[in-house]
């Protein structure tokens, strides 16, 4: 499935835009399995701080990541206001905790601008580009860069 995500069709690709704090990001719609409300997660021992725990997704144990903390921003106090985007990265399902889902965009390759050269490599590692739409700056997020190897993350 992620292979399909990589190929850009002539008409552009579909992205789901969501908000974390004041910033907006997107993920490719092909990676998204579902969007659901927040439920309290069972914390896992020996897990990094951005790993909130696991929840029960219709019988499947799904890990929930605080995306804000993962991107190096402020950790979030999860509440019913938040939204979980269930994504598939390679062959595993991961839930991303975000503030809200804002949009579904169809984006042509041409309007994607390259990531600005900022000091920190961390920001550049997860961003694939920037979109300027309606005075908003939306950052295209590369899911696979955020979860390069889930095993080594949690070890």
């Amino acid at each position, binding site marked *: 499935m992620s292979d399909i995500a990589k190929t850009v069709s002539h008409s552009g690709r579909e992205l789901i835009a969501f908000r974390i704090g004041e910033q907006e990001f997107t993920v490719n719609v092909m990676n998204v399995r579902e969007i659901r409300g927040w439920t309290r*997660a*069972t914390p896992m*021992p020996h897990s990094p701080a951005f790993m909130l725990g*696991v*929840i029960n997704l219709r019988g499947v*144990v799904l*890990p929930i990541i605080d995306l804000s903390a993962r991107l190096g921003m402020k950790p979030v106090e999860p509440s019913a206001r938040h939204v979980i985007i269930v994504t598939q990265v390679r062959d*595993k399902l*991961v839930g991303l905790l975000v503030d809200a889902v804002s949009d579904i965009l169809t984006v042509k390759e041409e309007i994607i601008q390259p990531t600005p050269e900022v000091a920190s490599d961390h920001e550049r590692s997860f961003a694939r580009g920037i979109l300027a739409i309606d005075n908003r700056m939306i950052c295209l997020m590369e899911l696979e860069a955020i979860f390069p190897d*889930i095993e080594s993350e949690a070890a």
Partner: protein
Amino acid sequence: MDMNEIKEIFFQECEEQLAELESGLLKMNDGETDSETVNAVFRAVHSIKGGAGAFGLDDLVAFAHVFETTLDCVRSNKLDPGPDVMKVMLKSADVLADLTIAARDGNKVDPSRTTGLVKDLELLANGEAPTGASSAPEPVAKAAPAPVEAVAAKPTDDSGFQPIPFSFDDFGDEKEEVAETPSFEVTFKPRSDLYSKGNDAALLLRDLSRLGDMSINCDMSRLPPLDQLDPEAAYFRWTIWIKTDKGEDAIRQIFEFAEWDCELEIKARSEAPETAEELPMQPIPFDLSMLDEDSIASEADESGANVAAAASTAKETAKATVQIVQATAGAAAAAAERRDGGDRREAAAAKADTSGGANPTIRVDLDRVDRLINLVGELVINQAMLAQSVIENDQSGTQGINMGLDELQQLTREIQDSVMAIRAQPVKPVFQRMSRIVREVADMVGKSVRLITEGENTEVDKTVIDKLAEPLTHMIRNSVDHGIEPPEKRAALGKPAEGTVKLTAKHRSGRIVIELSDDGAGINRERVRQKAIENELIPADANLSDEEIDNLIFMPGFSTADKITDVSGRGVGMDVVKRSIQALGGRISIQSRPGHGSSFIMSLPLTLAVLDGMVVTVANQTLVVPLTAIVETLQPEAKAIHSFGANQKLIAIRNSFCPLVDVGRILNYRSTAANPVDGVALLVESEGGGQRALMVDAIQGQRQVVIKSLEANYTHVPGIAAATILGDGRVALILDVDSVVAASRGQVLKIDGALAATG
């Protein structure tokens, strides 16, 4: 499905066919040569050949074809299956099996094995005796019609069709209607989409020609005059008569990709013989090479007039053809039905005979069974949730609801048991393989060992069986290589020269217990201790119980063998064994008596999906502790708690001291140590030997939970075995008792070292 998956299925089916073949041949060998048995044998080889052809397994196809040809002779009563013939048949079956295995593994079989048999089979097919021996009169009498049959049955798999205007006069034998290669009439009319999608009728026809003898008639009646010709449209219609033994499916397969863009009709023709002679058709010799050049338009340019003339004759023949077709269609349909009916009955009978005994069986995809098991697991969870909400909302509970719930629980449990039983298989096949391994290893190391098995019919979940073979193999090799003494030594000790390895399986309290014991020398504890100290696995002055010394052999890289042999000595065996057993959710322990032998006892869960657990809370988190690990629960009293060293606490239980393990700290749920008196202690028994007392805050209850994997979407977490879903829908973690205990022992060992250092 990709090619590899399809190939897998094919090889699985081959195994079944080979089994059928073997049993059929054995029956024939016993004298049961009725047509049903012979047909079953023929079909088995035929199926293997067909499938092998699809995958291009040429060696297999070639041999199977010769085998099949000879079997065909038997089937059509041209060859009498006497003892000599059966010998050749049985040997051929063996070679066929070897070729199949070779094809599956990508190896080659020594051609010398096959060529001799191929010659014999061909001789038989031609009505001659294979090695010149007995029963001369019968084969000779049948020699006359046999060569004709042989000629007709020769492979026509070469490419390049030859339109053979065949007549069926040569075949005087009426009985052959079923035995002869079936003919089909294929009507193929492509639509213009077919060409625009990249298919080419010429290539399709060429592939078709590879299936068998074929003659083509092209109906060009729809071809318009040149000025109205649309070069991208399709005007032709082909009627093809093909004689092939590959069946209608093979024909359809050729047109697979073009199926939607053409009109395709395939009719079986078996009664055609009579009507064929009346066929006034003049097959317009259709030259495929013409199409290959892709210049229909230009050709039509030159031969516009010819086309018109040809078209009119074609029209007539087409009309005549249509009439014949209709006449034969009726007859063919009737014949096909009869044949199908016969086939079905035979197939039903064959199915009933398979898998030994009168029980009909059915082959099911393992995925479907897995899905069913998952759903039943969900059902159990849901039922638990329902029961819980009723209890919470309705304390008193109406009579009806409570009774209903109880019944529901009963039913769910029964469904669960039945579903688990679907996947249960006896351990017999695994044990049988072990027997061979014992012989091989004993030979290799020059000892004499015998394997005794007990409880072979004990049933275990299929996945457990699959994963059991490897650890058992390791352990048996170790037993024979290290445990059993050489015959001379045994004699000197007064033991019988032949060593005994005993493998037993039995059900015990919801688990299956497999025990592997030998009557060898037992574990040399001194050597083990020494080696462990040398490899720095334990400090030099560590005081370990016998049990703990025995368990040292499970440590990674441990081996007391002084040299590495082919069989063992690399020090990877027992560690891998233990991990494999644990991966199955099982436990392994050792009992050893020096001089008398050792015993490895494995306890495995009957099913992998469900667990009886005790629900406890630790630092506000809910955990599930597998019930099988818990020996006792107790409420610690202050006076029973003793401190040991800087960090350790021990609890006195009936005159022995047991280390307390603070689960909350080990799992990092809290940073401060808990006070044992505030909570409950669970006395657990771990594989590494010894007991521990796990400190938890409170016990919530005991229940059966469905195991959910963590590794599926996350990763392995130390201390946690898996996860489960509680009645309230939340995820609870299942504690991995062994690793928690191991972690705590790490602390103990470190403390000891510290003590030693400070003197």
